[in-house]
């Protein structure tokens, strides 16, 4: 009985740690080819203002995606996502949205295609925004 448990545990471990990565034949992780140059957003604002999130991104050849997520308390919402095409140095507005009074966490994600598994986050920036 103990032997069966050990064998099942070992097989589960192999499947969890190794086999998916071998099967997917993942390419190298694309970490160094996207440059997040700057992120611009208000940190303190009034309830009568809508938040704009701006960025400069050094785009490598091909498609780069971005996502802007807002977390208010336990609730997180993606307020905007889009695609940029490089090579280029891109500066512009990623998102504009309204927030209720309180503390919010705004996160900018930059993603690159990664093998057959879809996109992978290669850069991330978190900001706290307070609405009065």
């Amino acid at each position: 009985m103990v032997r069966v448990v050990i064998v099942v545990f070992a097989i589960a471990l192999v499947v969890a740690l190794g086999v998916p990565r071998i099967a997917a034949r993942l390419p190298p992780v694309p970490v160094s080819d996207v440059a997040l140059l700057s992120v611009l957003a208000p940190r303190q604002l009034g309830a009568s203002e809508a938040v704009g999130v701006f960025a400069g991104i050094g785009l490598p050849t091909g498609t780069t995606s971005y996502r802007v997520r807002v977390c208010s308390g336990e609730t997180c919402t993606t307020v905007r996502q889009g695609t940029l095409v490089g090579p280029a140095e891109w500066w512009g507005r990623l998102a504009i949205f309204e927030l209720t009074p309180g503390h919010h966490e705004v996160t900018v994600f930059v993603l690159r295609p990664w093998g057959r598994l879809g996109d992978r986050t290669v850069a991330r920036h978190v900001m706290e925004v307070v609405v009065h």
Partner: protein
Amino acid sequence: MPRSSMWAGFAFVLASIVASVAIDRANGGPPLAENGVPSAFHASDTCSEQPFSLPGGRRIDGARVELRGNGIARGLVCTPTRLTAIVEPRTIGAQAHVVVSWRGSSLWEALLEGPQRLAVEVPGQGWVAIGSVTIPTGTEVDLERSGLWISELSVAPSP
């Protein structure tokens, strides 16, 4: 249970972990959840300063320039730098929520109703961006009225 079976199982598990780590290293690192990705702002060993410019590439060079709508003025500094400028809403009677950002940090932020001189210390290498970052809620974005005037912009090494 025979002791040899236990050792065989232990060796098998250990080999699996080692193989997994080796595969991760060959792929450039383990797959990361979003929360494991660090902020990645550009930094280079071969920094070359780039003067402040407007969208489209026009250099500012201390002149009084118009930054329309949600445009961003930006420049690359390579050493600790003192940045000074006068910023004001593009339209008389309008407000402008202006932020000066270095990489991901906000160095200066103000809600302007008229001209204001700013002076910020940029801590080191990185892109510095200036822009008007909010619009009034419940209104159409009025790009004809929004934006900034920037004048007397200058950069100098920090004292």
